């Protein structure tokens, strides 16, 4: 039968994993929840970030966490230009629904193929030593390769939340998500604010990518597993609320892990998407929605 130690390990590992999912979903919560931009390529950006960290790790023996320091600003710039393109081609024409979606879908696909052509389809992993270290607290294991992404994601979320709530620009971004026209009447430029916020969301994706490299070996198509998770979390977390994102992500992580144990690992991919389908049908406003 199921032992206590197995169960507690599964729950702890689910918590750690879920905490990392929150880091992956944080950017999507900003772009999808606040800016209403359905960037389905978000997980692809995360995987791209992971491969950038991997390349830095291979070439310069840079630690993945240190690589994040370099990857994040570069991704901010990439996001800046991506939004510029998106805005001019779709948003400004009022044509953002179908073609905008197809645009991000194409981006995701092209990104994946480029990674396959550059790095091949084999699994790649970083050569940091701490990834094999595990702390033990009684019967419960805390592998560092799960603890570091958990803590790193928490840092990402807290920093993003502080930026949105405490700084002038951050609060203006929250304003843009509520009423862009009113904001324009106040003399602010909604496009500029959205550009900053979208760039931030991509920067967060890059940082989460470096954490992904710490957590597990990566391959180009791994981002697909995250699409369901990211959007399930963003919707469930109440569209645009970072604390909600964290709670939803941790819940998903635990449920996924329990499913793996009770039903077998081959059922785990369906959990996130099943979660999402149920959420969309039963409670599209999310757990904490109005």
């Amino acid at each position, binding site marked *: 039968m199921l032992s206590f130690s197995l169960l507690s390990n599964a729950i702890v590992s689910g918590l750690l994993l879920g905490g990392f999912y929150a880091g992956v979903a944080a950017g999507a919560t900003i772009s999808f929840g606040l800016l209403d931009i359905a960037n*389905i390529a978000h997980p692809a950006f995360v995987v791209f970030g992971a491969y950038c960290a991997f390349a830095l790790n291979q070439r310069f023996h840079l630690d993945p966490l240190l690589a994040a320091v370099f990857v994040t600003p570069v991704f901010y710039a990439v996001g800046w230009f991506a939004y510029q393109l998106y805005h001019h081609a779709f948003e400004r024409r009022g044509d953002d629904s179908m073609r905008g979606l*197809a645009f991000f879908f*194409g981006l995701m696909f*092209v990104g994946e193929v480029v990674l396959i052509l550059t790095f091949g389809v084999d699994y790649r992993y970083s050569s940091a030593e701490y990834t094999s270290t595990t702390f033990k607290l009684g019967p419960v294991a805390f592998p560092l390769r799960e603890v570091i992404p958990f803590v790193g994601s928490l840092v990402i979320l807290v920093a993003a939340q502080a930026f949105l709530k405490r700084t002038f620009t951050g609060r203006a971004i929250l304003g843009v998500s509520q009423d862009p026209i009113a904001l324009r009447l106040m003399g602010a430029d909604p496009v500029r604010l959205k550009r900053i916020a979208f760039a931030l969301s991509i920067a967060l994706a890059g940082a989460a990518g470096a954490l992904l490299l710490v957590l597990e070996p990566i391959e180009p198509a791994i981002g697909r597993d995250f699409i369901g998770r990211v959007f399930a979390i963003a919707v469930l977390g109440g569209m645009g609320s970072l604390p909600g994102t964290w709670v939803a992500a941790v819940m998903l992580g635990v449920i996924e892990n329990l499913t793996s144990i009770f039903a077998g690992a081959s059922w785990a991919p369906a959990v996130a998407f099943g979660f999402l389908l149920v959420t969309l049908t039963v409670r599209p406003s999310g757990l904490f929605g109005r």
Partner: protein
Amino acid sequence: MLASLRFFGFALVVAVAVFAAMHAVGNDYVFYAGYTVLQYVVLAVAWNILGGYVGYVNFGVAAFLALGAYTGVALGNFAPFPLPVMMLAGGLVAGLVGLGAGYLTLRLRGIFFAIATLALAVVLQTLITNWDFVGGSAGVYAIRPKHIPVFGSYIEYMVFLMLLVAAGVVAVSRAIERSSYGLGFTAIRDDEVAAEATGVPTLRLKLIATTLSAAFMGMAGAPLPYYVTFLEPSSAFNLSYAVNSIAMPLIGGTTAWFGPLLGALLLGVAQQVATVTISSEINLLIVGLLLIGFVILAPQGLIGLLGLTGKRRSV
């Protein structure tokens, strides 16, 4: 109505003529390549019924195609049903799933439907992977019957059936465009709230479009096991089906029935030629880049560039 029937007759004549021409070439490769192109014609035109006319993006093309394919596999486990029966059954199952998924998510904004279709593909793939009756993760062999009356080889038979489905979906798509349904679809695409307010039964129309679109995808999927002879979940649910089926209408042009047809023929034939010369990855890379390029630079697609969109813009 009569004009639509006449067009369907015309499409059938074209289909038979194409078949005769392929037969005259007398090379099996033509049929193998032709099958793939025709499959994409059906997928692209079917996708466009919902995506192009109503403006709701379906990322789950592979899910509906695989539903058709695995319906065929499941039926084949009971008895060797003839292929047309399997295609009808595949269409029925895919249509019903489309109806169900649509009923649950089409009330929400379009983006949620799009994400739900992505989710549907993964959930279905997981179910099929864990369902050993249809092969599970190990896959399943589909043995083609050695001989088939009238046609001789099985691939010719499959191509002929696919031509019939292609003629059907093109005729249906054209008929929709010219009917009051088409007007309703366009109204939803342009402004759903205004359409609802003026009495367009938006949910019912969206459900009709979703069901039709999914049913044709399912029909196109039923012969797939016999085409590939070995079917496994990761190939049946391959994302490239979705990418191609979305790229073809957007490149051809989504506002008229011949847009996706043109896109599917051009891109489909080009890919068949290209797979001989370049790797399939580069092939897909080009499709992806073309998709991005067209949605940014030519939102009306090829038919827009060629000035073929017609004068029905301000209906």
